[in-house]
């Protein structure tokens, strides 16, 4: 089963989903069937002056995840995720990582066709 990457405020399934993609604290990379997961720290992207979204997209692509569940994705991160062949479900907020996985398993997430945030400096 293809893995999911969910932007998360911490390294546990019961952490809050971090609504930011590029500057998320980290990503839970999880097999949605077995719930086996790894935590991908995104702290270095948070500290970047620019390019956090692109960096986060690279991290997620390198993790092997083919699906991202998150809140807000900027235009450059969106382009990068598309190039890497990663599906994006955005506009998620006020839920835990576990609840986001549940939504995905129940087929309740919508796939994004375009970014829902303007980039910085535009």
């Amino acid at each position, binding site marked *: 089963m293809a893995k999911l990457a969910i932007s998360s405020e911490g390294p546990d399934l019961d952490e809050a989903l971090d609504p930011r993609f590029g500057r998320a604290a980290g990503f839970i990379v999880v097999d949605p069937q077995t719930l086996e997961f790894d935590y991908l720290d995104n702290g270095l992207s948070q500290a970047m002056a620019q*390019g956090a979204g*692109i960096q986060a*997209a690279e991290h997620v692509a390198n993790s092997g995840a083919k699906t991202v569940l998150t809140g807000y994705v900027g235009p450059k991160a969106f382009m990068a995720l598309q190039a890497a062949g990663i599906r994006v479900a955005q506009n998620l907020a006020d839920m835990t990582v576990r609840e986001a996985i549940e939504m995905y398993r129940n087929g309740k997430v919508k796939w994004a066709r375009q970014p829902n945030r303007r980039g910085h*400096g535009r």
Partner: protein
Amino acid sequence: MKVAIASGKGGTGKTTVSASLAASWQRPLVAVDLDVEAPNLHLFLRPEIHGDEKAYMEIPVADESKCNFCRACVDICQFKAISILGSVLMVFPEMCHGCGGCLAVCPEKALTPGQRELGHIIWGAAGSTGFLMGRLRVGEAMSPPLMRQVKARLNAMIQHAETDVVIDAPPGVSCPAVNAVMDADVIVLVTEPTPFGLYDVSLAYGAFLPLGKPMGIVINRAGLGEDTIYEFCRSKNLPIWAEIPFSRDIAAAYADGGIVAQASSELQLTFDELVESIIDAHAEHQEVLHA
């Protein structure tokens, strides 16, 4: 000699002081507007424009068919302007700072030089005063690359003559402000007697102090009521080179696009003394350097 007019806080009167200094300067001068995000010195000096050129920065253009996905360009770029995702090579031209590193390290010549427009460089003369300005393209996020090109043209303009330079610097204390003052011989900090003016000029003082250049203060809108700026200047041993009173007549002259120094004989005297203070501070500093 180059004099930079900076402030920290916006709207304290950098351009008012720059225009009045330019009008009061007795030696050959070029006035430069390096506040390329919002240039306005020309509104007061009203120069005759002699030229207008677009400025560009070198950015990489990718030919994916030549890319061997070695990631050398991705690794050298500090600004995420190039990314490789799977088997896709992506360039984000607006992120590029123009260092040329990726072009240099690509072993396959998959990256070739392209251009991003930075804005315009405009030059001319206001009477006997040379004039130069940069105007950043709307949407361009970085002003230092354009500022560097304006400064290169400035150096070409002054290299054949004993010409002084007045630089109208951008507000703030980040890269653009530092880029505007780093080549100056003297820095004039324009502030106002308000908590905001004090706070921001203290940041500017702290940012520019390591440059080791003589600095002096001009207090604009003097008499607004706050005295803390005077205590600050005393505590830092910062000379107050001029005070421009808070007055309706001055505001009216400014709003009319006039040169404030020419609004009254008292103000002209204030700016003549400011010119003298700047020249003296420069001469003293040179003596210290050569001692």
